[in-house]
């Protein structure tokens, strides 16, 4: 028992150091994941926890719909799962652009490992909940993540930051096109999963004031 805990700690501490380095915008973590077969689990864990944090930061809609605590927890898990899927779609489109537009040959899994680690700033997404300063924190985290992602792409593809930005932007653009065309059924499925987890139909586009008035009348 103690041995297992010790082992977990031994694995956890270096991982934590790696994440600190990602947060400090160091190139080293990406050099490590490029040359090593390991790191996939860590990268996906970072993205999943970032997804939990991000879903929590957007949980007002769940409270506004008076979702019960168990459903709330389930909704966070489903939200984090969908976030991981969203991440995988984005990375795949970046990889696709890098491969077919820029002739890069790095395998998809290397890009997943590197870009996944670059999601570390989003572990702090929950601070977006801070009243009034939420938008500022949100923009700061997005900028931090973008910087880490560009660094990750520049290391694994061996390109300049500008080329990494181009690759990332085109990948993002490709994802937008896919989402708005053939991706619609997938998005509808994701929305359905959110409603199922919450146990009720969530009206994401409804004004909060209207939801409150509606709730008061019930």
């Amino acid at each position: 028992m103690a041995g297992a805990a010790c082992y977990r700690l031994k694995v956890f501490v270096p991982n934590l150091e790696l994440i600190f380095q990602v947060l400090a915008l160091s190139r080293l973590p990406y050099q490590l994941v490029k040359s090593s077969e390991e790191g996939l689990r860590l990268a996906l864990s970072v993205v999943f926890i970032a997804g939990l944090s991000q879903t929590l930061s957007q949980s007002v809609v769940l409270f506004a719909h008076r979702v019960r605590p168990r459903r709330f927890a389930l909704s966070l898990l489903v939200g984090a799962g969908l976030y991981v899927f969203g991440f995988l779609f984005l990375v795949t489109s970046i990889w696709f652009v890098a491969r077919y537009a820029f002739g890069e040959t790095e395998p998809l899994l290397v890009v997943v490992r590197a870009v996944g680690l670059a999601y570390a700033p989003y572990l702090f997404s929950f601070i977006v909940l801070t009243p009034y300063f939420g938008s500022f924190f949100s923009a700061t985290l997005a900028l931090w993540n973008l910087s880490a992602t560009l660094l990750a792409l520049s290391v694994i593809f061996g390109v300049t930051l500008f080329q990494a930005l181009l690759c990332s932007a085109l990948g993002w653009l490709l994802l937008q096109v896919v989402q708005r065309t053939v991706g619609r059924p997938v998005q509808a499925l994701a929305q359905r999963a959110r409603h199922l987890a919450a146990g009720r139909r969530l009206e994401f586009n409804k004004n909060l004031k209207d939801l409150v008035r509606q709730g008061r009348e019930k």
Partner: protein
Amino acid sequence: MNDAFVFALVALGGFLLAGALSPFEALGWWAGWFGREADDVARSAAPNPVVSGARQFVVFLTGIHSVSGETFARREIELLEALRERLPDAEVLEVFPYSVNNRALTGQRFFAWFWRLALKLKLSRVAFAGFIINLRNAFQVAVSADKRYGPIYNQGMAETIHGALRGHGYWVGSGVPVTIIGYSGGGQVAVGAAVYLKEIIQAPVTVITLGGIVASDEGLLALEHLYHLVGRRDRVQRVGPVFFPGRWPVLPYSAWNQAKAKGIIRVVDMGPVDHTGKDGYLDSEATLPDGRSHFEATVETIGNIIEGEG
């Protein structure tokens, strides 16, 4: 890493965590996770109060230094007494504006002991305890001003104010006007709640802010009037015009600027007066050039406004 850096990092982490957790009281209350049961039991068990004959109801929302509905600040107690004397036809009551279910911090289920200790230390002049109370309540002001949480928080406050009014004999449908006085951070809560309160009681609602920190809240446009009492030496209320972009003059279509243009907002110059304490709005020793004490001038200004609105 040296100790100072670690301390700064821990303090920053604590600050951010406190900020991130601050909306959950209002959100959890709205979702029915906690706080609702006590309200419902109290409402169903309360006998119908005797209808008050008051021609005006005045609700006082204290500043962020407070931990409960019954304010402990000597000067505020004196203000309420002076207003009761000045306005014999009005019912003057207090509501704690930093908790959606009007539950004093010292009456919270899990952290009552912490806030009691903080209050005790504050009264013993331990500055840090006062800072913690102020920070906690300031975050609730920000919750009220935030578009993501404001509708929920302000609806909760409106229900709380309505409950307090009923408890003092207010009858919905009577059309008796209500004036909310928001001191400092209570100003934002007053503005935020007023629009929902107006919908509930179907009567005119006027807001008076005393050194109020007020955002450009859309509810401003639904008010009869907002009288914004401002001292020239009050640096605290200047937080509003600086931190809330809707109050910048360069945004003419913001709620604040529209309400100002429509004459809903009336800024009242209180003279060379500070925010609180010595030389503050409620200081009965400091005097204005016309010989009145700051306290007398404040009571007279508020009294005149309420009489005028009535």
